[in-house]
């Protein structure tokens, strides 16, 4: 790659390849050069030449719907958006002090957070490779700041390990790796792996294990300065007379296994969970607001869709104004429908039978988030915890420390629960008051002295009871992907579905945007052929 490093820049070369061979060749070349393999985003869609007067009705003003409205408008379509809620943004949403939220079943919460504090009920972190979302954040002027995903100093807690005492991630993870390294070293030295490794590779592996697992000269993982260099010290290195560090004591390996810390370690290896991650300044909802600034005049709010019909002439959508009760009908040549599948499944429609079956075949996950506002940042001031997550096997799943306004005085909001699966079912079944009480009880395991004493107020969102989604995200498995996915994403005459549910980046904003770009690109092609 001499030419790339001198004279011709990498960008110039890629542009040239793109001009000659088109996007596919450019993508292939970028992948070969170690770029772009992390995303299917190749820039905003280039839609132009819409037939004069051609119209599109967009159902739903989440990110997928608003992106469709923005790009199709730019392409020359007459676009209208119908939205059930009084707010645009969909699951991209932040709750602030003064906000009111009523869940299914009727429980209403008035959020009591101090100005500037918030809870992100839905999305809350953005991986660095979610290039579509990052692109539009930049274009629409959303200010981003780092999201502190990985904090070695945060805790792991298991009711099944160490007598229920939380341990620093750093020490349990180091002890897991150290013990695994020691055991694997033993296997190598006892010739258990001779069939798999050459003599030379055995030597390399032993050297790797010694370094990675901080083993001593005898290939043992033991208490001492070496293991402490990973797991931390009883007295850390200092200056002057007492500068010498005092090593810490390694944990019992059986307890390390009981803690299941490998689950948390593997979590951070997931591609979607790898650092660097980002969040918008001021709350995740800033993204929805920025999208809405582009398309707000196109959106009709408080519109509950009651019927979707298509025929040779176009698409007709009946809807009711939830405030006035007035029934209306909107017509367009085409429709981009981003309504969550569980809701769409209950709307009268004449979509193709295969698509109707697919819509009804995909259930939704649950999830619960709880925000707890405390009077001061005791996790920073007393525990030196700056962002990141403390994990637990209790229903709340984790607590997560704020990533913004570090070192400041005054109240701050901790994410007091991010529950899924059984934990989320149980928390959802509670009243909002019971959820806060449970979050305080379970979270106190990490901060027993301060958690209740410094608590001020809290709010919770249980996604199974969110009135406009009836769930968190589409849940696919291998069978449903095989049986229904292609049908779900195909253009159904004049209607195409879009949203996280129509992507393989499910439950992420990136999936909603990639789905939307793909859907409107194909719909545009369909419209030009009409």
């Amino acid at each position, binding site marked *: 790659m001499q030419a790339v490093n001198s004279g011709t820049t990498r960008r110039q070369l890629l542009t040239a390849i793109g001009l000659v061979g088109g996007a596919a060749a450019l993508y292939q070349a970028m992948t070969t050069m170690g770029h772009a393999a992390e995303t299917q985003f190749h820039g905003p869609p280039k839609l132009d030449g819409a037939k004069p007067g051609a119209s599109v009705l967009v159902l739903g003003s989440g990110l997928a719907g608003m992106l469709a409205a923005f790009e199709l408008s730019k392409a020359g379509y007459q676009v209208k958006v119908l939205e*059930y809620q009084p707010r645009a943004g969909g699951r991209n949403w932040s709750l602030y002090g003064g906000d009111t939220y009523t869940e*299914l*079943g009727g429980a209403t919460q008035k959020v009591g957070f101090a100005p500037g504090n918030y809870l992100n009920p839905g*999305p*809350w*972190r953005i991986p660095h490779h979610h290039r579509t979302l990052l692109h539009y954040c930049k274009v629409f002027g959303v200010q981003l700041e780092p999201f502190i995903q990985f904090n070695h100093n945060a805790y792991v807690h*298991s*009711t*099944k390990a160490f007598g229920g005492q939380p341990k620093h991630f750093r020490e349990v993870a180091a002890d897991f790796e150290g013990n695994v390294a020691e055991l694997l070293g033993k296997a190598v030295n006892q010739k258990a792996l001779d069939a798999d490794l050459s003599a030379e590779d055995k030597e390399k592996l032993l050297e790797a294990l010694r370094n990675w697992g901080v083993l001593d000269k005898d290939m043992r993982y033991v208490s001492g300065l070496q293991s402490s260099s990973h797991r931390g010290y009883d007295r850390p290195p200092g200056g002057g007379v007492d500068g010498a560090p005092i090593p810490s004591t390694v944990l019992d390996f059986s307890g390390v296994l009981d803690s299941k810390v490998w*689950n*948390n370690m593997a*979590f*951070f290896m*997931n591609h*979607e*969970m790898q650092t660097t991650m980002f969040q918008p300044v001021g709350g995740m909802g800033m993204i929805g607001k920025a999208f809405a600034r582009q398309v707000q005049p196109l959106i009709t709010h408080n519109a509950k869709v009651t019927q979707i019909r298509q025929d040779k002439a176009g698409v007709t959508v009946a809807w009711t104004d939830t405030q006035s009760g007035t029934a209306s009908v909107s017509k367009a040549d085409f429709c981009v429908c981003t*309504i*969550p599948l*569980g*809701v769409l*499944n*209950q*709307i009268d429609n004449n979509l193709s039978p295969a698509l109707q079956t697919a819509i*009804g075949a995909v*259930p*939704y*996950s649950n999830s619960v988030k709880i925000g707890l506002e405390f009077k001061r940042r005791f996790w920073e001031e007393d525990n030196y915890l700056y962002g990141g*997550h403390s*994990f*637990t096997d209790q*229903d709340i*799943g*984790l607590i997560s420390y704020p990533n913004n306004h570090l070192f400041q005085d005054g109240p701050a909001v901790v994410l007091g629960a991010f*529950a*899924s*699966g*059984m934990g*989320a*079912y*149980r928390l*959802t*079944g509670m009243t909002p008051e019971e959820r806060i009480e449970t979050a305080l009880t379970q979270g106190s395991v990490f901060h027993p002295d301060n958690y209740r004493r410094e608590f001020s107020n809290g709010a919770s969102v*249980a996604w*199974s*009871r969110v*009135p*406009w*989604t*009836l*769930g968190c*995200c589409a*849940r*696919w*498995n*291998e*069978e449903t992907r095989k049986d229904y996915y292609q049908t779900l994403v195909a253009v159904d005459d004049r209607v195409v579905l879009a949203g996280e549910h129509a992507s393989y*980046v*499910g*439950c*992420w904003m990136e999936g909603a945007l990639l789905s939307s770009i793909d859907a409107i690109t194909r719909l545009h092609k369909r419209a030009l052929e009409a």
Partner: protein
Amino acid sequence: MKPHLIAAALLILAPFAAWADEPGSVTTLHKPPVTGEEVYQQICQSCHMANGMGGKGAATIPALAGNPHLANADYIIITVAKGRGAMPWFDDILAPTQIADVATYVRTHFGNNYPKPVTEAEVKAVAGAKTSP
């Protein structure tokens, strides 16, 4: 604890499918639901509500109170085991006996009066093999 309840408790430990934005911790069910009432309170009422009345927003979570579908035991077995619309399948986290017990509970509460108990054998016969997570 009966063996089938231990099996159910272990199933519940399995984390949900990767890729989605998820907590990254393993949730342990400290007290697995044993009776039909406990299964209802720990799972079903998250959507169908403590009073069985369901909810109504952009779409409807059906009420179980006075729901005529419940006259048909197979209907509720299939629904709990395999899901329906937005409602997920539960045969990955509930053993057949738990599905039978909660079906019996719902059919005899919230104003419903179908006293014939749903059995584990019926669940196995009607709902068959487990759904993939």
